[in-house]
């Protein structure tokens, strides 16, 4: 197993450098991982795998990585590294996890394979689990939810992007006791961009069919409900729509608290929850064009924005939560969790703050 190397950085300081590889390097989240790791001060990329583009340059798949001197390798020829990131479709990692631990000390998986704590949940929501013995060992990646358990974790399970947006939006209400398993209906109406579908999209994701849509793509029964239930203890009414953007997931949560809450309460709860979080912002009202959370404001970044509004009668709290599914919703979250796990500065490699104006990010 590869030992942790101690590198000398450009300023002459000594800093930890970890070697890392990415399984699923031609994919969208795999490409995003490579982008982040390649300019991360504490990681050195060793391999990126692909079956379909074996031996091709990484820049051929990801034009933003044309400067990277790296070619895809076969996923069956993994070299020893400190950290192995896997960004494959659901079901792949659960079959290869033993193998992964043979070559790596730490495994960070972006698929759903290790997200749910109970094997039964995989029977209910997926097609069962091949390696249930790893489920207890796995830590959910989202630091805003699970920071205390990440240091030293060696199997990290990246959250689902829609689940992440929802959890970030609702957690402060749960923590404040405004929302709990006994509260009435919680409706979560999600809007997502086309990158959520991955790089291998079919007919529905072709440009002529996918442009300009508001398309109910998961009307009910979306698997991310299971994650939300597992980590917030809430059963939510979940519906996902495809809209015309490439990056972004936006969750609008409609909550009906038992007790009336005030705007000041909400400000206090949300500010309190996220004051020390390096990537979270509360955006709610105000002037100008960008008054509530929206994916454009966080596109390309690891930031999450949350905000809220009250119905005139204070009967309903509407919570808005916006992330970039490729960063905070997957690759960025994964690196953030790895930073915490390895004791690195939390924001290392994730400093990019986004652009304005930006189109459909």
């Amino acid at each position, binding site marked *: 197993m590869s030992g942790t190397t101690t590198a000398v950085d450009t300023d002459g300081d000594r800093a930890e450098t970890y070697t890392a590889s990415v399984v699923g390097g031609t994919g969208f989240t795999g490409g995003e991982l490579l982008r982040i790791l390649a300019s991360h001060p504490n990681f050195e990329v060793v391999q990126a795998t692909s079956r379909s583009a074996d031996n091709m340059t990484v820049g051929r798949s990801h034009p933003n990585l044309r400067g990277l001197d790296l070619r895809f390798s076969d996923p069956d020829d993994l070299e020893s590294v400190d950290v192995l990131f896997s960004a494959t479709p659901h079901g792949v990692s659960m079959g290869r996890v033993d193998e992964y631990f043979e070559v790596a000390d730490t495994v960070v998986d972006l698929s759903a394979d290790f997200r749910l704590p109970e094997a039964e949940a995989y029977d209910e929501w997926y097609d069962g689990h091949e390696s249930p013995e790893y489920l207890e060992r796995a830590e959910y990646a989202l630091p805003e939810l699970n920071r205390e358990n990440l240091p030293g974790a060696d199997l990290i399970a990246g959250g689902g992007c829609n689940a992440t947006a929802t959890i970030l939006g609702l957690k402060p209400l749960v923590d404040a006791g405004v929302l709990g398993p006994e509260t009435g209906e919680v409706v979560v109406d999600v809007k997502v961009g*086309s990158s959520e*579908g991955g790089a291998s999209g079919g007919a*529905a994701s072709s440009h002529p069919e996918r442009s300009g849509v508001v398309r109910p*793509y*998961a009307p009910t029964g979306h698997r991310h409900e299971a994650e939300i239930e597992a980590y917030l203890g809430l059963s939510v009414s979940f519906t996902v729509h495809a809209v015309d953007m490439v990056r972004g997931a936006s969750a609008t949560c409609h909550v009906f608290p038992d007790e009336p809450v005030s705007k000041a309460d909400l400000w206090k709860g949300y500010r309190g929850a996220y004051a020390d979080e390096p990537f979270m912002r509360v955006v709610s009202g105000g002037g100008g064009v960008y008054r509530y959370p929206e994916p454009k404001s966080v596109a390309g970044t690891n930031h999450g924005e949350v905000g809220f509004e009250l119905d005139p009668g204070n009967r309903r709290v509407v919570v808005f939560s916006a992330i970039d599914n490729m960063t905070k919703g997957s690759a960025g979250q994964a690196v953030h969790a790895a930073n915490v796990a390895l004791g690195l500065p939390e924001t290392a490699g994730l400093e990019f703050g986004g652009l304005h104006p930006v189109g459909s990010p």
Partner: protein
Amino acid sequence: MTTDTEPVLAEDPITGEEIELPADVEVGEIIDSPVTGTELEVISLDPVTLEEAPELEEDWGE
């Protein structure tokens, strides 16, 4: 619409309405209901019996 062969009739398994299908449907074929658009599997011929086809989620989803 002119066709060489007459359409056959069947019962829509969701609404119970009578629907028209092409004359050449075969057992196992997937065909969409003209009433609901649902994909139906042809279970038997003579009379034509239909059943909701298992949804191919992955086919469509993101």
